C-alpha cells in the first residue's frame, strides 16, 4: 500500500473525526459563552463556584479527562457512549479555555458602554445581549476559530478510547502491514489537509481583530 492507498484508508476515519469535532463544538461554544459571561457577571461565592467548574475542565489534562469519563464513570453507574465521552471531554476542556477569552473580551470593553445602557433604562441582561456581546463578538471570533482547530487536533486522542477516527485507522493500517513511515507520514498529511487552511484563516482573523491577549490564548 503506497501513500495514496494509506491516505484513503486513514480518511475513512474522517467521518468520526468530523462528528467528534461537531459534537465537541456543541459542548465547547455554549460552555465558553455561558461560563465566560457568568464569570464576568457574578461576584463572591457564585463567582468562585463558576471559576471552580471552569478550572476543573480547563486544568485537567484532556487525555486524563477522557479516560476518567470512559473508564471511571461506569463504576459509578454512568455509562456514556464513546462518542459522548470524546465530545464532552474535548468540548468542555476547550470550552474552559474559551470562557477565559470570552471573559477577557467582555472585560476589555469600555465601562462607558454599560453606563450608557443603564442611562437609557435598559435591563442589565439586555445590556449584555444588545451592547456588550455584539461588540465583544468580534474579539471572540479568533478564539472560536482557534477552538475549532484545537478540537480537530484533539480528536486524535479519541483513538485511545476505541473511536475509529483518523488516528485509529492509521494505527489499524499499521497493524495490518508493517510500514510506519508511510502510515504516520500519511497521518500527518491528513491532519494538515484539514487543519492548515483553518490555521491560516484563524491568523487572518486575528490580524483583523488585533486584540491583545495576554498569552492566555490556548492550550
Amino acid at each position, binding site marked *: 500500500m503506497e501513500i495514496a492507498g494509506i491516505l484513503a484508508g486513514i480518511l475513512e476515519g474522517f467521518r468520526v473525526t468530523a462528528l467528534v469535532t461537531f*459534537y465537541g463544538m*456543541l*459542548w465547547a*461554544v*455554549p460552555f465558553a*459563552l*455561558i461560563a465566560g459571561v457568568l464569570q464576568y457577571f457574578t461576584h463572591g461565592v457564585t463567582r468562585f463556584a463558576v471559576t471552580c467548574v471552569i478550572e476543573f475542565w480547563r486544568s485537567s489534562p484532556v487525555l486524563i479527562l477522557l479516560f476518567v469519563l*470512559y*473508564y471511571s464513570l*461506569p*463504576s459509578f*453507574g*454512568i*455509562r*456514556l*457512549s*464513546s*462518542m*459522548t465521552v470524546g*465530545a*464532552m471531554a474535548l*468540548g468542555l476542556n476547550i470550552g474552559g479555555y474559551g470562557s477565559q477569552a470570552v471573559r477577557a473580551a467582555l472585560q476589555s470593553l469600555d465601562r462607558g458602554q454599560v453606563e450608557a445602557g443603564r442611562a437609557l433604562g435598559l435591563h442589565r441582561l*439586555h445590556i449584555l*445581549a*444588545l451592547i456588550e456581546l455584539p461588540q465583544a463578538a468580534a474579539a471572540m471570533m479568533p478564539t472560536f476559530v482557534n477552538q475549532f482547530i484545537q478540537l480537530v487536533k484533539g480528536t486524535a486522542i479519541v483513538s485511545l478510547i*476505541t473511536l*475509529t477516527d483518523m488516528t*485509529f485507522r492509521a*494505527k*489499524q493500517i*499499521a*497493524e*495490518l*502491514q*508493517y*510500514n*510506519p513511515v508511510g502510515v504516520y507520514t500519511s497521518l500527518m498529511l491528513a491532519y494538515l489537509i484539514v487543519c492548515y487552511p483553518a490555521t491560516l484563516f484563524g491568523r487572518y482573523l486575528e490580524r483583523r481583530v488585533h486584540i491583545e491577549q495576554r498569552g492566555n490564548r490556548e492550550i
Partner: protein
Amino acid sequence: MHTSILRSRQLLAALLTVAATGLGALSTPAAQAASTRDTITKSQTLTIGIHNRAPWGFRSESGQATGFHPDIVRAAFERMGVKNINFVITEFGALIPGLNAGRFDMVASGIAITPERCNAVIFSEPDLAVGDSLIVKAGNPLKLHSYGDIIANPKARLTGGRGTLNSKNAIDAGVPASQLTYLGDAQAMLSAIMADRVDAATLSAPSVVGLLADPKLKGVERATPFTGLIRKGVPASMYTAIAFRAEDTDLRDAYNEQLSKLKADGTVVRLMKQYGFTDEDAVPQAVTTAKVCAGEY
C-alpha cells in the same frame, strides 16, 4: 430597536437550543433491568471486544470481526439466533476493564485463563492451549532462547504487552522489571526491536507466526528454539477462552453448551486448521476452567 431585541432573543433561544442539543447527546445511564443474555437474544446482536491481532481477533479487510475467537463466537451464537456481531477494538490490557465497564458483551480475542483474571471475569471452557514465543532481531545476536537467557544478560531488554499473560510469564520466570518495558501493541514492539530500543518481544506463539508472515517485515525473526516459563516441571501453557462479566453466568453457560456441540461436530477443529493451529494446540481433556482458575495448570 425592536428588530435588534427580537434578534437578541432569537440568539438567546438559539444558544439554549444548541446547549440543549449538546447535553441531549448524553445517553441515559444503562438501566440494568434486563440481563445481557436477554438483551442479546432480543436484539439478535452482540458486541465483542478484540485487540486486532491475528489469528486471535482482528478486523478483516472487509470490516468484519474475524479470527479464531470471533469465528467461534459467531458459530456458537448463530445457533441461538444472533445475526449481527459488532466489535470494539481496544488495547489488550484494556479488554477486561472495557468488558467490566460494559463497553462490550464478551472478550473474544485470545485471552488466557489465569487465577487473577478469574477474580475479575468469568471464562468459558478453554478452546486452545498455546505457549509463549520470542521475536528477536534477525540473527538473534544476543542468542536469547529462554527467559533465563534474558535474566542472565542484564543488558537484554524485553518488551511485552500491558496486561498480557506473556509479560506475566516473563516476570514469573524471573525477568526483572528493569529489563521489561510494556508497549501497547505488536506494531510498537516490532518498531522497538528494529530501532534497537529493545532486544526481544514476548508474544504467544500463534501471534508471532501471524506477525512474521508479513512479507514486508524484515530484520526480525522468531527465536528458535525457545523455552518459555517452566511451572512445576512442565512448560506452562496458556489456555485461551471467552471472557464474560461476572454476573453473566447464564450467557457463559449458554455459550459453553454451544461450545461442546461445536467441539463434537468438528467445527472447532476446522477453525483451528483455518487459522494455522495444530493438534498440539488442542486442550487436553483434563483441563477445565475451574482447575485453571484454581491454579492447577
